[in-house]
């Protein structure tokens, strides 16, 4: 029971830290705002008017998944410098297991990302994405799946990093390419084989595709927007989630004390 309380405490702390820091909340919504409103809006105006392709909806769903995936992953990776920071120092010397710390962080960063999801949905509505209640609920649970998946990705990256400097250095290599290989903005239907290969090894792709699976159900442009069906994406994400989580946590815990 105590470890459960600890997970709740750690998660609640992460959430409160975000809510009490309006500047951070706003800056975390800056990129989704730029992507959806400016990029999405201009693409739709320039290219969407004559074709049947709904750029706004495509970019909205892509950015929704990308924002949650990245927020959860980077949130977990922040454990790298937590040993020297604020209350986190306390967490590392408290009598709770290291596995509890990772779990609490995953739950906490999921909550943090879901707060941002509310902002992303608001931007979507603002630029004219039409959302039914069913779609909203669908985005809710695909969002949670995306966060957990992103957090597990964060754990495996974290377990291979030594300090904040390397974390900042690897960011452009592990996150930015995925923006384009996951199909956040650009369609993924007919890629040359080498790009297709790179796309398939980008974890973010499956989160983006799952989000579109849910969002586009029943729409006439379903086939144009998605790459694989929900069952495929979910199964793959579940397997990779477990692999990342177990190997990553094991490596992190072992490395943490053997400096």
């Amino acid at each position, binding site marked *: *029971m*105590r470890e459960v*309380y*600890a997970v*709740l*405490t750690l998660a*609640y*702390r992460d959430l*409160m*830290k975000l809510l*009490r*820091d309006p500047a951070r909340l706003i800056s975390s919504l800056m990129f989704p705002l730029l992507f959806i409103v400016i990029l999405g809006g201009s693409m739709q105006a320039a290219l969407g008017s004559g074709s049947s392709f709904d750029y706004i909806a495509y970019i909205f769903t892509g950015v929704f998944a990308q924002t949650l995936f990245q927020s959860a992953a980077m949130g977990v990776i922040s454990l790298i410098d937590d*040993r*020297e*920071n*604020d*209350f*986190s*120092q*306390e*967490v*590392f*010397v*408290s*009598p*709770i*297991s290291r596995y509890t710390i990772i779990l609490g962080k995953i739950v906490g960063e999921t909550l943090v990302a879901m707060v941002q999801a509310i902002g992303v949905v608001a931007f979507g509505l603002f630029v004219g994405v039409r959302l039914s209640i069913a779609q909203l609920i669908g985005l809710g649970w695909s969002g949670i799946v995306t966060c957990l998946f992103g957090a597990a990705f964060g754990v495996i990256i974290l377990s291979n990093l030594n300090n904040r400097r390397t974390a900042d250095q690897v960011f452009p290599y592990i996150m930015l390419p995925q923006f384009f290989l996951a199909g956040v903005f650009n369609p993924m239907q007919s890629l040359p084989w080498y790009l297709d290969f790179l796309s398939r090894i980008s974890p973010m792709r499956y989160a983006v595709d799952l989000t579109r699976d849910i969002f586009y159900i029943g729409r006439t442009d379903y086939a144009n927007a998605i790459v694989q069906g929900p069952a495929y994406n979910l199964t793959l994400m579940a397997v990779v989630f477990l692999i990342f989580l177990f190997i990553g946590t094991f490596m992190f815990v072992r490395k*943490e*004390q*053997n*400096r």
Partner: protein
Amino acid sequence: MTQPVVEVENLTKRYRGAKENAVDGISFSVAAGEFFTLLGPNGAGKTTTISILTTTLNATSGAARIVGHDIRREQSAVRQNIGIIFQQPSLDFNLTAEENIRFHAVLYGLYPFRPAYSTMPRAYKQQVSELAALLGLENEMGKPVKKFSGGMRRKLEIIRSLLHKPGVLFLDEPTSGLDPLSRRTLWEYLSRVRRERGTTVFLTTHYLDEAEGADQVCIINRGRIVAQGSPDQVKAQLTETYLLIDSQERNKLRDELRRLKVEFTETASFRINLHGNDVQKIIKAIETPLSLVKTHDPSLEDAYLEIIKES
């Protein structure tokens, strides 16, 4: 004799890729209720030692026990029995003082988690209000920590670390970054805590004056223990009283000292280490007229500065 609260045996740490040991085979023990100080210049290995003893870092070799628990095999029990004040503030500045305390209490298994103060158990509320009264912060517990002064934050951390009644309280250079007044209030508060609760205190510092009130001082330099014991014993180990003499007729004096078999070193004047010898006896034996006679009794600070200079 009661069992020591902290026992360290031949503890060694070499960081990965490092050429030298950060901590090099140190041993000491701290009795219950004792005020122990690990004194040394920056980079001497103090924080490494404290990190190992508080289980956030594995030692390369050697062993240590805290309140009877092995630091490697019984990490959880060790953590439950220690309180730590870190060099860097360990508070969430955007959260309230009460929240910082509440999270600690839940992580140490003292109370169940509740998202709001009002729904926490009565015993918790009582404990918090008692602590707040002790600090004179009755009306501040709901305020974010960023509104607190540096000294108040430190006090809040000490209070928090005592919440789970640890057997030993570790403080890693707790006064760095505090102004003189906050420093003094902090020491006053700490000694009150020691008086009232009998908490064992394990302090690291690079300020000599903070070590002077300790029951036991351990001076560490380059990972090794240089001197160990009560402040008076350490002083005796590190300092040596010597006699300085000089004469207008230096050659004559030199010959005479050799004849008398008195060991000396000759610099601007003649320095004779006393090694417990009687000053008067030496002076009496010398017949050459002396132009200078001076005994020198270095302070502990002189000795400590010597150590720092060497590193």
